[in-house]
């Protein structure tokens, strides 16, 4: 099963290497990992998506907690939360297709951030579901390049279970 972990760590050199090393050293698989500063510049938040059964997830959480630089580990999979990622798509856009792509982009609230003679770069943010649906639609036009950040996540206010 897919789990989303929200991990607060000290914003210090080497922390990402410690986390990445923990996953590779213990044979856990990372689906995605994003990291950046929080409202407190001395703290970083990592959003880690991991696939595995409950036993593996328990070990992942415990091992992350065991790192001296880890402040807090939350498995937010079962919590009410917002989970968004950002995707850039370079899509084939010949003159006959531009209107249709623009329309689809509007429906999905994607932005056209670059226009060239034969292609657009589109930017879309949102849940994995929405983003995947949009990518599928764009395939019909021909995707030249694609990059996705992996999700970042945040628990909704007042919705924590425990």
């Amino acid at each position, binding site marked *: 099963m897919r789990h989303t972990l929200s991990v607060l*760590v*000290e914003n210090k*050199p*080497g922390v990402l*290497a*410690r986390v990445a*090393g*923990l996953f590779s*050293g213990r044979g856990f698989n990372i689906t995605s990992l994003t990291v950046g500063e929080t409202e407190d510049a001395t703290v970083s938040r990592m959003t880690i998506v991991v696939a595995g059964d409950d*036993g593996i997830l*328990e*070990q992942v959480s*415990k*091992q992350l*907690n*065991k790192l*001296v*630089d*880890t*402040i807090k580990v939350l498995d937010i999979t079962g919590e009410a939360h917002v989970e968004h990622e950002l995707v850039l798509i370079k899509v084939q856009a010949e003159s006959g297709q531009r209107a249709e792509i623009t329309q689809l982009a509007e429906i999905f609230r994607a932005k056209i951030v670059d226009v060239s003679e034969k292609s657009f770069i589109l930017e879309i943010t949102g849940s994995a579901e929405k983003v995947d649906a949009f990518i599928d639609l764009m395939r019909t036009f021909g995707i030249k390049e694609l990059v996705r950040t992996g999700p970042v996540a945040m628990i909704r206010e007042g919705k924590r279970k425990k």
Partner: protein
Amino acid sequence: MSQEISGAQIFVDSLKRQGVEVLFGYPGGVLLPIFDALFSADLKVILPRHEQGAAHMADGYSRATGKPGVCLATSGPGATNLVTGVATAYMDSIPMVVFTGQVATPLIGNDAFQEADITGITRPITKHNYLVKNVADIAPTIEEAFYIATTGRPGPVLVDLPKDITTAKCVPVYRGKVEMRSYHPNMEPHANQLKKAAAIIAEAKRPLIYAGGGVILSNASEELKALAEKINAPVTLTLMGLGAFPGTHKQFVGMLGMHGTRTANYAVQGSDVIIAVGARFDDRVTGRVDHFAPEAKIIHIDVDPASISKIVSVDVPVVADAKLALQGLIKELKPRTCDEWWGQLNEWLQKYPLTYDRKSAKIKPQAVIEELYRQGGSDLFVATDVGQHQMWTAQFYKFDRPRQLATSGGLGTMGYGFPAAIGAQMGLPGKPVAVVTGDGSFQMNMQELATAVVNKLPVKIILLNNGFLGMVRQWQELFHGKRYSSTIIKDSVDFVKLAEAFGATGLRVSDPTQLSATIKKAFAVEGPVLVDCIVEPEENVFPMVPAGAPIHEMLGELA
């Protein structure tokens, strides 16, 4: 204290503040400022002959005394030579603070002379590590390093010190008490968990206490004994746990696992409740996991939450310091007996004692250990190397007190024993210290004979010489059709002459009737003595659970 002093001086002052009495260190280019400061410091510095020796010495010192061991090596090869010793300590949760020199900060990352990314290299084998980049950070980092190494589940912490920060100056600030927002080991047991555990134990018909090195690390031996006696449960120990419960106690059923006693392994398989304390269900203990203790509910006391339900699913976890948890648990329990269970256990104990052929014309390795125990008893501190001699020591030496044994359990590091014994001797001045080693293991760090001789450390080296890399040979005999590939090492070294070349005493014994007198002589002679015991070459360690088998399926006719 408002005077500016050098980073090297801050290093020395920080160690003094931590109560460090001895440092095992090897100098080098980037460590010149630190060794210059050490030259006039009131701190004993032991120079090993190889940095690996320094790491194992710090480890042995820690296991013997309970204090954190401290070692120091230069950048690059000095630092990488420590790696095996650091990994050894990490696997056995031994508190150590390891210092390495590093090239000056402007050179880091340039592939400078003697540069190695030692914090990168040791990240998976340290509890934590630091690269200090500012002279003002030296004092607080060393305080944190000692705090982390010695609290919670202990372990080695490495501090990498670039040369330029050891010559830079500042006014050091010592915080005294360390507070970290990201590190809070949980020491206090949860009262409800203790109640649950007590209820299960009260219902148990065939309880078993399975204890490991955590009991020794948390100084919980008295509590373990009190619990065992209160509930009349048999006690089995892991290799790391030996001495945590008296080896001569009538409730002790021996070590468990791959080379454990039949009684201990049968007790695991027959028990209905296992109380695991400071042990981590290592594969050498469990054998085939899905057949491990099939009828038992498991209570697991461990200070490291990640140890719980890692290998075996646990019914009642108690995340806490072993001493505090045992104290709490004892209060929750009423005295009881297990007469029926003891009827069965005593039958096994009588039927399956550890034994060997005592009428042999050659010296049996087990006989050497028994003789060493007869003479050394509970006074002698014993270190071992890794292999057959290690298992025979675990089986035949009755360790009656904690911190009596230093052995590389988790990593299984050949070459560990002799330097560990030297470190232990530094921590136990005037006390008898021996290392039981093999002709294979000893050759991995025999250069430390110089360290023992120069520092007048009277370690007795009991070398079981069988001419083989014995444990691998045993597996080749049993599982690879006796094809002794690269395990024959006989007649390659004259160990008596070797000892003499270093200025130590060398003795040799091959006649069983001379064994006792020879060991007696080794203890009588001053200074380090090597006893080259020529033993039965193809003796096997039995009983034995083949890798991957359930632990009740043991090989070995006699035992």
